[in-house]
Structure formats: structure tokens, C-alpha cells
């Protein structure tokens, strides 16, 4: 129990650190925030409930006024800005990523995580993000989707990296992945 709380807090802190030290920057001028990868990782490594809790904790601290979002953004203004949907979407994104990872039947932990990241960290995140964008900018949902779609290639890359990282965690620290251990046990004869 204490370890769960510590993991939730540490993952929230890691997402914050990813906003300052981005491990991925794509070449065409727009620095791609790695924080949505943090949401994918939180869901894939901690599972649905704890991953969502980590993101909820992160968003709460942003709302309280800490500049934890990439680019040093934070405070209540974030939640009425055009990117509010993407920020709030971190929570359901991590949750759905965790759900997919926990329930899908695949041998490879990395494939499960990558698939979870595509469904949770991209599909779900963009539904929330585009909805927020269309509400704040007063645009139809389709136009908001088009505007946001620029970032999908970068996010696919992040989903792939998430898969590779979770594959490595499954090999190095399988005890961390609750869903993997349970499943590996059931696969044994």
C-alpha cells in the first residue's frame, strides 16, 4: 500500500521531469512534449487505477499552481486554455492504457504496452484534446481534430518507445508490472 502511493507520486514526479528534460525532440521545429509518453508509461507500468491516480495527482498539482506542464505552464489558466483537453485527457489516457494492458491477451509485454499506448495515449487523449480545443476555440470537432492531427506521428513514435521501455522493464523488473506477473503465471503449465 505504501509502495503504491510512492509509485503513484514518483510517476507524477517523472511526468513533471519529462516536461523539463524532454527525451524526444522531433526535427521540424516543434518540440514534442514527452509528457504524454509519461501518461502512457504510467498506465502501462502501474496499471489502470494507479496510473490514473498518478495522472490525477499530477493534474491536481498543476491546478494548485505548480509549473509542471511542459514549457513551465501551470496554474488554473491551463484548464481554460485551448490545450486544456489534452492536459485533462492524461488521466483517462493513462486509465485506458492500463485497461488495455491488463486485459489484452498477448505474450509480449512490449506489444501490449504499445497497443495500450496507441488506444489510451493517442485515441482517447485526442478525443479529449480535440473536444477541449473545439470548446475553447468554438470550432467544430472535425476542424479541431485536423488541427491536432499534426502531432499524431510524434505520438505514434512515443507509443513505440513506450512499448520498448515496458518490454525492458518486463525483463529487468518483472515484479513491478502487476498485470504481467499475473499473466505470466497463468501461461505456465
Amino acid at each position, binding site marked *: *500500500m*505504501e*509502495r*503504491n*502511493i*510512492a*509509485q*503513484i*507520486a*514518483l*510517476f*507524477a*514526479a*517523472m511526468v*513533471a*521531469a519529462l516536461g*523539463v*528534460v524532454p*527525451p*524526444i525532440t522531433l526535427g521540424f521545429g516543434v518540440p514534442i512534449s514527452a509528457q504524454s*509518453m509519461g501518461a502512457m*508509461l504510467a498506465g502501462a*507500468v502501474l496499471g489502470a487505477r494507479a496510473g490514473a491516480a498518478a495522472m490525477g*495527482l*499530477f493534474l*491536481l*498539482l498543476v491546478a*494548485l*499552481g*505548480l*509549473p*509542471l506542464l511542459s*514549457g*513551465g*505552464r*501551470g*496554474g*488554473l*489558466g*491551463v*484548464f*481554460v*486554455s*485551448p490545450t486544456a483537453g489534452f492536459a485533462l485527457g492524461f488521466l483517462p489516457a493513462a486509465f485506458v492504457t492500463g485497461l488495455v494492458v491488463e486485459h489484452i491477451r498477448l505474450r509480449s509485454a512490449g506489444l501490449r504496452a504499445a497497443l495500450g499506448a496507441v488506444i489510451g495515449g493517442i485515441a482517447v487523449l485526442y478525443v479529449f484534446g480535440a473536444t477541449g480545443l473545439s470548446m*475553447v*476555440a*468554438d*470550432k467544430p470537432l472535425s476542424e479541431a481534430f485536423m*488541427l491536432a492531427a499534426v502531432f499524431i506521428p510524434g505520438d505514434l513514435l512515443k507509443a513505440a*518507445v513506450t512499448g520498448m*521501455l515496458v518490454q*525492458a*522493464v518486463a525483463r*529487468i*523488473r518483472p515484479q*513491478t508490472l502487476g498485470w504481467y506477473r499475473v499473466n505470466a503465471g497463468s501461461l505456465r503449465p
Partner: protein
Amino acid sequence: MISLTSPVETRAHGWPAWLKLGGLCLASTGLLLTDSPALHLAAAGTTLALYAAPGAVFLRAGLRALRVALPFVAVLLAWHLLTGDAARGVIITLRMVTLIALANLVTMTTGLSEMVDLVRRLTAPLRRMGLPTHLLETAIPLVIRFTPVLIARAERLAEAWRARSVRRPGWRLMLPLMLGALDDADHVGEALRARGGPLGTTARD
């Protein structure tokens, strides 16, 4: 860590946080309900006056916090110019900037401890319903403490990489960073348990 709170102490720092937050909710709802250009201009003007009242230092800090909205302002205005609906574009942009500016104003004039206090009071009914909201009081300081630790560690990892390679480190540093965070979580979990843990506080409550 950089803080988003104001560099200068204003009179609004002394006002209760719930009052500022309540006012923000009312003002935001009002702005979202109206489409009148006059009202939006008045709201934007009032907000600017609020920013200017505590002096030039405060105004500059406030405008700096608003800079992140600039790309969206440009895109929105360009979009509406192209679709030939400039007047509506100006209102939407004005509303967006005013809403962000008002929300930032509350953040700038309210300290972190006051906000945490407010969260504790707002979640009190949930706690009575049996939700473990007291765990937040353990988790919030942990995040605040470990964010700079993890940032420093990520920078150290990047330095070590650069000493060995001419290529950019990129995502490869994510694995040691995450494994380090998971190790930290194990240690912190053990330390919490050794000290009675966040669950221990429930027993005493």
C-alpha cells in the same frame, strides 16, 4: 523550482482562497454565457486593470505567463480571417485570453499552502464518505520533493551520455530514469511503512 506565484506581494494575497476561486468560477461562467462584444471588452479591460493595479513588476510577470497562449491567438485570428468571420474571431480570442488571464490571476496571488488547505477542506466531505483523501497529504509533498530530484538525475544521465557519445541521448535515457524512479518508490514505500505510513494516520484519525 520556479514558482508561478507573483514576484510581489499584492493586497489580493491576503484574501481567502475560496473567495478568489469562487469569483473566478462566477466570472468564467458569465463570460462563457455571453456573446456581447461590449461585455467581453469590458471584462478584458477590467482584467488588464487588475493586472496593472499592483504595479509594473506584477504586470510584466502576468503578461509573461500569458505568452504561451500567443500561438493560439495567432492561429484563431488567422483562421477566422480566412473564413471571413473576423468579428466573431476577435470575440472568441478575447474571451479565451480573458479566461486564462483571470485564472492565472488567482494562481499568482494564492500561495501553494493556501491551495493545499483549500483542497483539504473541499475534500473533507469525500473523506467522511470513506474516500482515502488523506493520502493526498502524503502524495503531494512527495511529488514536490521528487520532481527536482528526477530532473537533476535526468540531467546527470544526459551529461554522462554526452561524455561517451557524440549522438544525442534521446529516449534511451528514459529507461534508467524510470528504473531509478521505481527504485526510489520502493525505498520511499519502505520508509513510509517504517514510520507508520499514510495508513497509520487513518488509524489515528
